[in-house]
């Protein structure tokens, strides 16, 4: 019992679930879990809608790209794809179940608008999808491939690492597949368990020749995806699926691009640099607020955006200023991309660092604690009655402040937080 209770606390302390994503289509575990919800109490349903491990903070309304429209992340992806198909007659979109609109609704309406030779289903075979996309790109088409979940990109690992990434180099630039973009839903979703939650970016950044890009919201997603598609290198674009419906903001209707390999400083600060990408950016934004509020610490928050090739300059410039760095990602800590950032920063900013670089990442086990809790909840719901919405929020706050303090306690005091 004690073990179980400890387990519960540990789970509650980590990220909490959101089940606003999902489409009610068959085939995904997400959908299957959603179907369970009517059988659960209405209390669970209510709290699921409200509890999240982050609060989405919309980007400011862009003014420089003309008319905008309120979009969530999946709609901004559709909008980007729509812009590409209308301006580039060679562009094709393909993957598993994209024809009827995709299991996450990212391709809704495109087949009707642009024809079934441009938006089509492939057989269920990831190595085929990426190989096919490479071939189409080599022959001059703009190929936009979808892998249904980032968790299922591994069957295509050979085609991505040995083929796509090396095409231009090995042929002496005679041939290339620069017109290939691979999109894949990415990151934890609260109840995705082992194979609907992964964050595999670190596997790919060890491979020169491809670009890996992850947006934090709808406005960013559209601009970065359009850059990936226009870029003359094969790109992998990971879409944080927990944001597909949760994140809503004003997005330009027309095409625009956000440059790759440029990190964005979202909040200036002077005591510590916080680096993340995807959903985790919103987590760190909240942490920055908490740090300011509870500790009087001024945090500089950076969204890395492009994971490979990453913006070393922006991150190092920030660390030179603040002297401290915390990197956080959803993926496991060992071999995660935070390791690359940490190592590079300590090499470049050794004389500026006032404390060891801190990595706040997932543990090296296979289920994320928050998900483990969910699994237990769904199978032993009597043992683990769902906490109320306010309990979730309190637990979340405790978790992040704890972790920040745990990291910060290893640092010499910052001038503005000498009380830690």
């Amino acid at each position, binding site marked *: 019992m004690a073990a179980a209770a400890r387990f519960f606390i540990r789970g509650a302390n980590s990220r909490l679930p959101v089940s606003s994503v999902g489409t009610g289509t068959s085939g995904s575990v997400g959908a299957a879990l959603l179907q369970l919800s009517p059988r659960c109490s209405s209390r669970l349903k209510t709290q699921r809608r409200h509890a999240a491990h982050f609060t989405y903070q919309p980007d400011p309304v862009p003014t420089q790209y003309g008319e905008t429209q309120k979009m969530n992340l999946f709609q901004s992806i559709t909008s980007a794809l729509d812009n590409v198909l209308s301006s580039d007659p060679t562009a094709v979109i393909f993957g598993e179940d994209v024809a009827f609109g995709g299991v996450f609704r990212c391709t809704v309406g495109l087949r009707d608008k642009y024809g079934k030779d441009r938006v089509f289903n492939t057989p269920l075979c990831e*190595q085929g999808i*990426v190989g096919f996309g490479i071939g189409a790109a*080599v022959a001059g*088409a703009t190929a936009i491939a979808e892998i249904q979940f980032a968790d299922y990109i591994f069957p295509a690992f050979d085609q991505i690492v040995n*083929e796509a990434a090396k095409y231009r180099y090995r*042929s002496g630039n005679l041939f290339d597949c620069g017109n290939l973009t691979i999109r894949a839903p990415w990151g934890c979703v609260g109840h995705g368990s082992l194979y609907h939650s992964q964050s595999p970016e670190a596997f790919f950044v060890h491979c020169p020749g491809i670009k890996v890009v992850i947006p934090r919201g709808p406005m960013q997603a559209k601009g970065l995806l359009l850059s990936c598609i226009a870029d003359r290198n094969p790109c992998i674009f990971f879409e944080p699926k927990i944001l597909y419906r949760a994140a809503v903001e004003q997005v330009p209707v027309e095409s625009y691009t956000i440059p790759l390999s440029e990190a964005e400083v979202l909040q200036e600060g002077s005591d510590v640099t916080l680096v993340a990408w995807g959903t985790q950016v919103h987590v760190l934004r909240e942490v920055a607020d908490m740090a300011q509020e509870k500790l009087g610490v001024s945090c500089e928050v950076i969204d890395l955006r492009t994971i490979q090739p990453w913006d070393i*300059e922006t991150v190092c410039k920030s660390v030179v200023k603040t002297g401290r760095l915390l990197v956080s990602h959803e993926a496991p800590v060992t071999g995660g991309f935070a390791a690359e950032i940490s190592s590079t920063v300590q090499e470049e900013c050794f004389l500026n660092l006032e404390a060891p670089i801190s990595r706040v990442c997932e543990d090296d086990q296979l289920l994320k604690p928050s998900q483990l809790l969910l699994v237990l909840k769904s199978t032993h719901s009597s043992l683990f009655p769902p906490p109320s919405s306010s309990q979730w929020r309190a637990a979340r706050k405790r978790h992040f402040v704890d972790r920040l303090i745990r990291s910060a306690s290893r640092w010499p005091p910052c001038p503005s937080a000498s009380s830690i």
Partner: protein
Amino acid sequence: MAAVSSMGKMYGLCFHAARQTAGLKASRLLHRRAFRISAVHQQQPFDSSLEKPQFPGASAEFVDNLEFIQPNVISGIPVYRVMDRQGKIINPSQDPQLSKETVLNFYQKMTLLNTMDRILYESQRQGRISFYMTNYGEEGTHIGSAAALEPTDMVFGQYREAGVLMYRGFPLDLFMAQCYANADDLGKGRQMPVHYGCKDLNFVTISSPLATQIPQAAGAAYALKRENLNRAVVCYFGEGAASEGDAHAGFNFSATLECPLIFFCRNNGYAISTPTNEQYRGDGIAARGPGYGMLSIRVDGNDVFAVYNATKEARRRAVAENQPFLIEAMTYRIGHHSTSDDSSAYRSVDEVNYWDKQDHPISRLRHYMTARGWWSEDDERSWRKQSRKTVMEAFERAERRLKPNPELLFTDVYQEMTPGLNKQRDSMWRHVQQYKEHYPLDLYEKQ
């Protein structure tokens, strides 16, 4: 029962179908050229009142006795041939009636490839190049198929298809430049020898991972279909590579997405040391084609005319009907797998000798030409001498040429140079300048 026994003849029927529909009507072609909506419209409309299977996954009758479908491996798909081992045309209606110049060109390209193979193989033995793979015994499959294609057709290969490039006019100097990785190499000296590629000749650069080119060829064929410029794609692979998952992907994708593509399998009996009975248990590769809904044929790979005819017809129909074709060319790998392999460790010399002396694509074509008075002993002697001289000259030029500038190690990773790579390149140069006595810089082109 009747249905089951007719299944047994399925492969044979497909073979006939491939030949009989040669004179397909133009009206039907137009109809088939349009994009079809996957398989849905090929199945019967749903009618629950009928006492027949309504499963969406297949169109078939019910059967009331239990019987498993037998694979037909004892008497497999027949091997199509045009001339016998003495170069005599067997069925005049199948004679492609090629002109003397065309046939002479076939012969010269095959023998030139053979001469280049011999010289480069020897040069590897002497440590002058690092690696080589010969084409012995498979020259007919390359030349016969290449001749049946249009020069604009895109070629995806494995690594034992140098004859296709030879036929398309790839200069000997560039073959050598690639093997020597010298400054003339179009690939900038980055890949192992025999990994050729040529944009102008639509020959996509070879890579070592097996079968990866197969689904890529499907994607390229799809893109070419959308361009509607009357181009096809041909994709070569060995029977060993056909065991890779990517082969399955490529076959299935090209069929469901209706790609104008010819899959050309060189079944030479071995994948390095692995004989075919450890590679598969069905009737070779051709028998898999119908399983994917693909028109398939098996040809004598040592008969350049049989290869030519099959490829020609497959190419015509692939482009006209937007569908893939599978050609399995039966042949024998006479040489070692590569210069890193001694094939006598796993097969008998007698076996190799049979194919080298009694059933070789080059000697068969020579018999054909001699019988027509198009080739004599003298022609043979002087051509041998001349081809050897041309190859040796290119060889010596390639050997004397400098290697590419080391700077090229860093370009083309991405289209643009990234700041990280820039830094690493600068660091390399600083290092090399400081320790130049430890590097063979004089062998490399200067900046």
